[in-house]
């Protein structure tokens, strides 16, 4: 029983990380029709910013962690907005060029991070309370998992409130349906694009900070590795749907964790989680080609 609880909560935690990454991707695609392969860079930037801050600031208290989170969010938002303004905006409606440009940025900035920080994973001094465990139904659950679950839930709630309760959210929801008509109502949709990119950058950067605590290390390939799963989550959930991404992130995280564990125990096949995720993707695409929230 405790194993199942531990696997379940760990899977939910992983799902939280995937959702932080996928929510921005999904919004970006829904509004701008941009497949942003540079999205992983925002996570990596957040992860390294947090690592730099906690490595250089003294003490171990919550202040240091809060500063690290804040710094990472600012850097994530700034890089995302800069990518949108300088790279995506000049290439609107030119989808192939956008994909090529974002792939180029991902490769270039990934190489830059590797050049500056090295290719090897570096340990991240996370706060002691995050390294501890909490007993849940007899299972000793690492607090980092609980934090990522809570962060995913908070971001889901915040995005939902933003989309439902604010005028900018209304513009984004309308823009996902018909971007042209939003402009024809006298709204500067470009500003909404930049805002959505920045929000995606914030969520991904938060994912980067929490991935430091989740994995205990930071490395230049983290964003790229997470991006693959985030794309899977976005496709399974339905492009442009935040709720769909949340459901898909939980599904992918849980299935991956359980498959990894039982694949190792029963068949000595530790990578069975990745296989199970791919099978889930194939099944969803066969049954609901537009994703769980996108209909048949």
């Amino acid at each position: 029983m405790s194993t199942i609880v531990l696997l379940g909560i760990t899977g939910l935690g992983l799902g939280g990380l995937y959702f932080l990454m996928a929510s921005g991707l999904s919004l970006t695609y829904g509004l701008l029709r941009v497949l942003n392969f540079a999205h992983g860079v925002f996570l990596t930037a957040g992860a390294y910013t947090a690592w730099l801050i906690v490595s250089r600031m003294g003490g171990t208290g919550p202040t240091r962690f809060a500063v690290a989170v804040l710094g990472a969010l600012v850097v994530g938002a700034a890089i995302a907005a800069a990518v949108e303004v300088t790279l995506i905006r000049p290439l609107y409606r030119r989808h192939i060029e956008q994909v090529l440009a974002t792939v180029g940025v991902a490769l270039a900035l990934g190489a830059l991070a590797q050049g500056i920080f090295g290719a090897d994973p570096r340990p991240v001094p996370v706060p002691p309370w995050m390294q501890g465990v909490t007993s849940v139904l007899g299972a000793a659950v690492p607090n980092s998992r609980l934090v990522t679950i809570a962060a995913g839930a908070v971001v889901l709630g915040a995005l939902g409130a933003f989309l439902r309760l604010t005028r900018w959210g209304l513009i984004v929801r309308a823009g996902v349906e018909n971007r042209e008509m939003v402009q024809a109502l006298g709204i500067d949709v470009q500003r909404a694009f930049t805002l959505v990119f920045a929000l995606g950058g914030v969520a991904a950067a938060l994912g980067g900070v929490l991935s430091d605590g989740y994995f205990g290390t930071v490395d230049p390939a983290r964003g790229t590795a997470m991006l693959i799963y985030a794309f899977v989550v976005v496709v399974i959930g339905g492009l442009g749907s935040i709720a769909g991404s949340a459901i898909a992130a939980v599904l992918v995280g849980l299935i991956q964790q359980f498959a990894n564990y039982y694949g190792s125990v029963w068949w000595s096949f530790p990578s069975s989680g990745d296989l199970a995720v791919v099978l889930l993707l194939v099944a969803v695409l066969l049954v609901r080609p537009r994703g769980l929230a996108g209909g048949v």
Partner: protein
Amino acid sequence: MTALLEAQDLHVVLAGSHILRGVDVVVPEGGVTALLGRNGAGKTTTLRAILGLVPRAGRVRLGGRDVSRASTHAMVQAGIGYVPEGRDVFAGLTVAENLRLAERTAHPRYDQVYEIFPELSARASQRAGTLSGGQQQMVAIARALLNPNRILLVDEPTKGLAPRVVARVIEILAAVSREVTVLLVEQNLAAARGLARHAIVLDQGTTVYAGGFAEFVGDRERVHRHLGVALAPAGP
């Protein structure tokens, strides 16, 4: 005659097809100007080109001011309201959200809108995608009426609607045109006949007539040549 909106030598090339080949549009201030033409003549593209919704060459002036380089949202902010063909309501948003999105001033004219369309008030929380075609048309027109406009570009407002609803829409447009200039694309010549004072006729992407509406429809041979329809005599 003062020109409120002028578009000169509009050219639009879409997917390799030269859709507009030098269209000229002059809309005088006040009343309804009908933009007529056969299917595929370029009427909808002309409205979209004026608003910058498609890449275009040519000049556009609003009230004598050159707005050719203005973005779509800036043109709308300058007072060009748009009611698109097919309504283009945001299906996933409620009626109230559709209207809220269209607000451009601190004091949107909800009183006026709900006076004209009382059913929209009753259906405020209903998703626009679940409305009938006529109700969606009302939302589309209401969005434009919420704000003070200098001109309304209205594209095929009666298309696909039941005859009873068509009569209502024409009635509303007639009332609206007493306050704001309307450039109306209308395939239903009988509907346009009750509204328009001026006509601009397009044929194969060029302007072939600009002048009085009555003069145009009075020449049956010309109507048949450019619109491909035989016009029934006007009612009493």
